[in-house]
């Protein structure tokens, strides 16, 4: 497969070369991350025997009229600490050929990514920061020849490091814009959609009789009228005993509802979800981030400040019920609270609990392998708290020279549930208060100084933290930044550590180079509710990205 694709790719390139009057285009990008490791036993930074590790890739996409072809070369020599060592090696990890006529028909063979609706039953994507890549390898067709309607269908296997997984995924999806189909002129926009996904994996279990074909379906609706918008999706999955759910024979369900209202200067966002036994992989025996067919979005607020993201939430696919509400408001310019430039405030609250579970019948306990598992009342919230986050933010421009961002957070996290172990002080729950002040000072044209002050206060885990950051930017090319994260509250005096890190960066057009040196904390990086554990490191790091 790999070889023949490459040959076709070459022929296509040569063909293009011979056609002088039609322009082909080649575009792509590079990303190189190199880290040098020094040992630091106090922070827990280890020194791998390679001393230096690298993750790198380059994408090449070639387009010629309606045809395109591309490949991604990846090299993990060897993969950075914290990434799965199964990536070690190098080669062409992604390649495709595609045809697309102007509007209605598209065909792709080889690798591709896809998402149906919000992803509850199908989403393949890549996130290099997480080392996440569940790309499909197979065939996909989409058709949108009927006004307001678009269809997609695919049959494929999924990427597992340098190979593909066992299972085969078969999937179709339809999207219908009611207003366009019937050329309605009213103000309410209605879009409905539906999808069906089935996976096949042979049953080789000596004891259990496992379903070889597992089906799932989802229906979605979005409505909008003026400033109101509602979008929702419901998904159902047939019995799918797996290592995630302890091999129980129970169906899965998920519901996601988002409602928003907004007008100039005000926005309201409400979200609710329920997930029950919705882990869905093309190999029932896989774990962690491998071979997921679906993606259950996490509805907690995304935090990007270092200390605010220390205790992040991740989607619990086995079961969770969560809600979130947020209000954003902008006090107008020249008003009492708005001042000269206006003031923005936001208040957000998010919470997530377990679902309730009772025995499926009188004779079996909850979640026994090979049985029905449990019964769960759709509307009843479980007792176990997973996550709580109250967040108040203020954003203001002061005069022409200063910009101020202030945030307060109150977070509760079920550390044991999320990390699979108690925290560093032996607690199950971690309660924290976090304060952040971020001030940007425009010294003069193209010269900016930015200060960050962060504090995290907790009686659990590693106790209190303080952090300061100074960043000096010389637009358009250079920046330099220094931060110190200080675990001053740690109960062990030898663990009251300063994590000092310096970085310098250069940017030009679509190229960015960054070199940093120092210590970084162990923690968890999460993107979209999918997380990766990051070990503590000490040393130099170089990062280069470029697009063309």
């Amino acid at each position, binding site marked *: 497969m790999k070889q023949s694709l490459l040959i076709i790719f070459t022929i296509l390139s040569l063909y293009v070369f011979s056609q002088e009057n039609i322009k082909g285009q080649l575009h792509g990008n590079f990303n190189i991350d190199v880290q040098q490791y020094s040992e630091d036993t106090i922070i827990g930074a280890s020194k791998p025997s390679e001393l230096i590790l690298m993750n790198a890739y380059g994408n090449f996409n070639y387009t010629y009229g309606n045809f395109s072809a591309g490949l991604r070369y990846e090299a993990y020599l060897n993969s950075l600490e914290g990434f799965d060592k199964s990536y070690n090696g190098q080669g062409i990890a992604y390649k495709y050929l595609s045809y697309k006529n102007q509007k209605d028909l598209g065909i792709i063979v080889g690798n591709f990514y896809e998402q149906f609706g919000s992803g509850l039953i199908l989403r393949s994507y890549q996130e290099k920061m997480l080392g996440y890549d569940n790309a499909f390898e197979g065939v996909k067709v989409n058709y949108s020849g009927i006004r307001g309607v678009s269809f997609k269908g695919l049959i494929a296997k999924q990427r597992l490091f340098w190979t593909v997984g066992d299972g085969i995924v078969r999937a179709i999806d339809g999207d219908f814009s009611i207003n366009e189909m019937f050329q309605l002129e009213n103000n309410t926009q209605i879009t409905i959609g539906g999808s069906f996904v089935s996976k096949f994996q042979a049953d080789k279990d000596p004891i259990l009789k496992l379903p070889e074909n597992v089906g799932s379906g989802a229906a979605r609706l979005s409505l909008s009228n003026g400033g109101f918008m509602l979008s929702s999706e419901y998904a159902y999955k047939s019995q799918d005993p797996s290592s995630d759910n302890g091999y129980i024979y129970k169906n899965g369900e998920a519901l996601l509802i988002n409602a928003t209202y907004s007008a100039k200067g005000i*926005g309201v966002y409400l979200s609710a979800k329920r997930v029950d036994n919705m882990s869905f992989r093309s190999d029932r025996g896989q774990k962690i981030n491998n071979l997921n067919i679906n993606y259950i979005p996490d509805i907690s607020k995304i935090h990007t400040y270092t200390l605010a993201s220390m205790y992040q939430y991740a989607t619990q696919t086995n079961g969770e019920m969560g809600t979130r509400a947020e209000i954003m408001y902008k006090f107008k310019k020249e008003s009492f609270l708005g001042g000269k430039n206006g003031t923005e405030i936001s208040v957000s609250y998010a919470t997530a609990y377990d679902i309730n579970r009772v025995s499926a019948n009188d004779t079996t306990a909850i979640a026994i392998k090979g049985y029905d598992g449990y019964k769960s009342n759709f509307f009843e919230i479980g007792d176990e708290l997973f996550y709580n986050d109250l967040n108040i933010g203020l954003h203001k421009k002061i005069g022409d020279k200063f910009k101020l961002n202030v945030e307060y957070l109150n977070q509760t996290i079920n550390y044991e549930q999320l990390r699979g172990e108690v925290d560093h002080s032996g607690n199950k729950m971690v309660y924290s208060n976090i304060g952040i002040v971020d001030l940007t000072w425009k010294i003069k044209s193209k010269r900016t100084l930015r200060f960050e002050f962060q504090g995290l206060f907790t009686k659990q885990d590693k106790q209190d933290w303080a952090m300061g950051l100074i960043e000096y930017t010389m637009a358009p090319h250079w920046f330099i930044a220094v931060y110190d994260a200080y675990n001053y509250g740690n109960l062990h005096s030898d663990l009251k550590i300063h994590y000092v890190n310096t970085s310098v960066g250069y940017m030009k057009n679509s190229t960015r180079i960054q070199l940093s040196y120092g210590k970084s904390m162990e923690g968890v990086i999460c993107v979209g509710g999918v997380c990766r554990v990051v070990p503590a490191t000490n040393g130099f790091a170089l990062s280069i990205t470029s697009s063309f």
Partner: protein
Amino acid sequence: MKKLVFILSVVLFVFTIQAQETSIPNVEIKTLDGKVFNTSDIKNDGKPIIIDFWATWCKPCVQELEAIESVYKQWQEETGVKIYAISVDNSRSMSRVAPFVNTKGWEYEVLLDPNSVFKEAMNVVNVPHVFLLNGSGEIVHQHTAYADGDEDELFELIKKVAKGEKIED
């Protein structure tokens, strides 16, 4: 490995002999109210176009769009430029994009790319990433990351493009 070197050299050869001017790839993304939007419909009657990839959780992205917002009217009057702000928020946060944008009062054409289809087709690695297209829809400049004051440089380039001048990157 030999094959790879061969392929890459062929590709690079083709690359060097081809003209560099480009148009944008044709993929399907979504409007804020959930309709399918074809990226071949990114148009501005022969005037310059900016395509800005951003996300609600990306602070430099938001800073850049805020900085441009305060001068956008003036930019439009002088050059007729139109800005497409492509949010790469995934299904976790994409419903939040509309209230976020409206609270800020942004006047851009905001579109949703929740599975990064358009982002990857445009070979964007990190956000923010800005593309400047000339009146014929060809990419004439791109820039990643944001530093205070970058918008002034961008405007100088837009003015050149609006006058039909060439840009030397």
